[in-house]
């Protein structure tokens, strides 16, 4: 076993042009402003912070949904940021993403089977429709859905079921790294717990690494091995889960933790 992390992010910057033109000076939003972190094989790192801190942009940059401004991201030792779209395409199989909104992340015009077949054919994981169907059936069962649902359209499912399908789309590729961007935030509490358990179980069983992006500290504590706290485009504190939650060092982390409403069950 080597000790090289699966993903090494170094001094990553992603800036967005927000204004300026011929007459005005260009202005930039520094959404991600120089962050570095490592994710080892089989490890779950959470990126936690409040809205607008840039945590989602990190995930979108690592999947090339946004272009990076500078920095490096070594995946298995290879810098993925400067890659062209076609050079990056084969790597997409290994780096997958779970999106927040289960109602928006599935194409309403495609059946579940069509949605799940596409990645299989793109990456050459199935040679025929029958082979694809068998794989899809297995994966749907893995995420707790009956294989027969593959003939249906997204609008026929509830939020929790759709998120399971979204997870199936990721798991069917057997990725090495999954980026989960607020993957359970849009779900009701009771459904959120089911999906969280599922994600945790799948992560354990497959040994994949995960970058779990969330604003919810409770969820983060539940799922992660290590936690990085982000504030205004930068990571202010990184550490083991225990350390972050039980002995936070940074002022901002402390403020975050104390702001959470707590339920004290008074046992009679």
């Amino acid at each position: 076993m080597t000790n090289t992390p699966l993903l090494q992010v170094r001094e990553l910057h992603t800036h967005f042009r927000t204004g300026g033109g011929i007459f005005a000076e260009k202005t930039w939003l520094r959404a991600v402003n120089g962050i570095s972190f490592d994710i080892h094989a089989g490890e779950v790192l959470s990126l936690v912070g409040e809205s607008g801190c840039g945590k989602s942009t990190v995930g979108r940059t690592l999947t090339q949904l946004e272009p990076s401004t500078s920095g490096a991201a070594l995946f298995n030792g290879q810098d993925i940021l400067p890659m062209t779209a076609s050079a990056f395409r084969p790597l997409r199989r290994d780096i997958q993403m779970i999106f927040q909104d289960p109602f928006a992340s599935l194409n309403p015009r495609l059946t579940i089977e069509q949605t799940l077949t596409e990645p299989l054919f793109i990456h050459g994981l199935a040679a025929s429709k029958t082979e694809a169907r068998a794989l899809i059936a297995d994966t749907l069962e893995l995420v707790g859905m009956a294989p027969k649902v593959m003939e249906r359209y997204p609008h026929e499912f509830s939020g929790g079921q759709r998120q399971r399908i979204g997870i199936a789309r990721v798991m069917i590729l057997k990725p090495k790294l999954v980026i989960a961007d607020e993957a359970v935030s849009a779900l009701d509490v009771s459904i959120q717990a089911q999906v969280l358990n599922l994600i945790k179980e799948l992560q354990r069983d497959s040994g994949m690494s995960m970058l779990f992006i969330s604003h919810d500290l409770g969820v983060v504590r539940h799922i992660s091995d290590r936690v990085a706290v982000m504030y205004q485009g930068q990571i202010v504190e990184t550490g083991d889960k225990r350390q972050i939650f039980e002995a936070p060092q940074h002022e901002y982390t402390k403020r975050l933790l104390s702001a959470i409403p707590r339920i004290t069950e008074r046992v009679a």
Partner: protein
Amino acid sequence: MALLEVKDLEIAVAAGGALLPVVRGVSFSVDENETLGIVGESGCGKSLTSLAIMGLLEGSQLRLTGGSISFDGRELNSLSPNERRAIMGDQMAMIFQEPMTSLNPVYRIGDQIVETIRQHRDMSKRQASDRAVELLDLVRIPEPARRIDSFPHQMSGGQRQRVMIAMALACDPKLLIADEPTTALDVTVQKEVLDLMADLQTRMGTAIVLISHDLGVIAETCDKVAVMYRGKIVEAASAAALFANISHPYTRGLLNSIPVVDHDVEWLEAIPGRVPTIDETLPGCAFHPRCSMAEIRCSAEDPAPHDVATGHTVRCHFAGKGTV
């Protein structure tokens, strides 16, 4: 006599000629200086209940099909629209979830507050504007005299929600209904807004109905709690009594579903299944398909409200018989 008394409230939604019940027999009361929390998942009917109190159901597919809502001794459903309008915004005010869409983007926030005040109070523009500054100061907006000239988009989400609270408080209402007031906000901002509401309540004695999906928020801010599931209140008690002796399996399940920040849990005890949609008819207890305690009786007989202690009511056949 409580300030607000809701009795046997029934709301139905018109769908394809039929009326599907969405709120069934909801009763509760709120007194001055008291905060009632209504908690539940999406589709449980908590927001509809608040809309019904504010008289905002009209003009939609929703129908008030039964029950009474009395405010300060007056039956709201028997009032004319004009009488009702005179009460709304004056003695009764509402805060919505989305501070971005509840403020009109083309008016300065000061003008919007002045407008609200002058609808109900005989004040000059000058006086109303002074009052607006006072209110913004009250909700801790820095430099209020300057900020009244801001447009909504020039403020942050937390600030906009404070402006909404300021507007709601413009006429010193006796009752404030807050529907998910902090759901769109970050935790640190949420804490500030909730603290602010609690502080204003102690100063002015306002009664508050706080509607939230977040059991944590409810637990920290409310005096009384009502847990709703599928249009019914399944458990209601004072916050202290409820969290000391959770008696409905749904409340228990909800609590177990929340990952906590203060200690590690290996697996969450999730409630299986999903919330039934409104067009599904379920005999018996609405929660029985997801309930770990369910017996044959639960699928046949809808449990009646049952007191497990004084003021602690539970709709479950097993209420008070062992722990959940």
